[in-house]
């Protein structure tokens, strides 16, 4: 396949010289030292503070358990309250209305003829 000029590489001696110029250190101790320098620098910096979604995700497990317990307690309380209401309503339906609660106070119904006569006479006399 014909090589187009755009992809025509440099002569091999030039590439070899360039690779020599840009060669990375070959000594393994150099890389061990560089790693130690990096880790020493990291010991002076702190990792990025956790973001809100990470904090939330950290709470996920405990949160789910707590929410489940809270829901169960709330459900039990609601059920208990509902049963009490139902019982109260049922009892109210079955319980006969107290007669006195509907009765007119006896004083209002008393047919006190003397009092009414006196009042009538007082009005007429004016």
């Amino acid at each position, binding site marked *: 396949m014909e090589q187009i000029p755009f992809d025509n590489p440099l002569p091999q001696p030039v590439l070899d010289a360039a690779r020599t110029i840009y060669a990375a250190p070959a000594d393994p101790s150099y890389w061990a030292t560089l790693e130690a320098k990096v880790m020493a*620098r990291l010991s002076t910096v702190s990792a*990025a503070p956790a973001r809100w979604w990470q904090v939330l995700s950290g709470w996920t497990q405990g949160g789910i358990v707590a929410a489940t317990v809270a829901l169960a307690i709330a459900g039990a309380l609601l059920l208990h309250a509902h049963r009490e209401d139902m019982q109260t309503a049922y009892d109210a339906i079955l319980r006969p209305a107290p007669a006195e609660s509907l009765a007119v106070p006896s004083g209002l119904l008393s047919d006190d003829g003397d009092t009414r006569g006196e009042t009538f006479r007082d009005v007429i006399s004016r």
Partner: protein
Amino acid sequence: MAPPLRIDPDERALVFAAQQGDRDAFGGLVRIHQKRMYAVARAIVLVHEDAEDAVQEAFVRAFQALDRFNPEQAFGAWLNRIVANAALDIARRRKVRTTDELHDTVADRFTDPGESDELRQRLTDALQELPDRMRSVIVLHDVQGFAHAEIGEMLGIPEGTARSDLHHARQRLRKRLENLRGT
């Protein structure tokens, strides 16, 4: 050649552990990636010492941004972008140096400072005369073995621009070295 940037399960485990705050796991990631990161940095800055500084700075930045890294992506590619940015920052700061100072430091490479031949000296001079981005592209491609797309991603340029830079850089080097024996 640059190693392929596949997602290794062991590396993913290290990344996950490091994200949970395990510094030893992060040390493992440093061991895996530091050579390739040095190669990226060395292609962008002119001297070994700056490349080393860029690698250290990049690891610190990566450590601090680790919570934002998606473990489903290639950790190596993410690091490449970070170290390229760190190296570009250093290169920008080094712009204040004089040409003479740069000439001295370029010649003072890490390995075997006694070695000196005409080709290497002429090539060193020719590379130094290239615009920064062109030099980075040709070194990343022809010396370090990165693909155009990877280079574009690292340097923040379109892949086509990386191809074009490579073409022009090769042309300039050829012209600069045309009278040299053996080229």
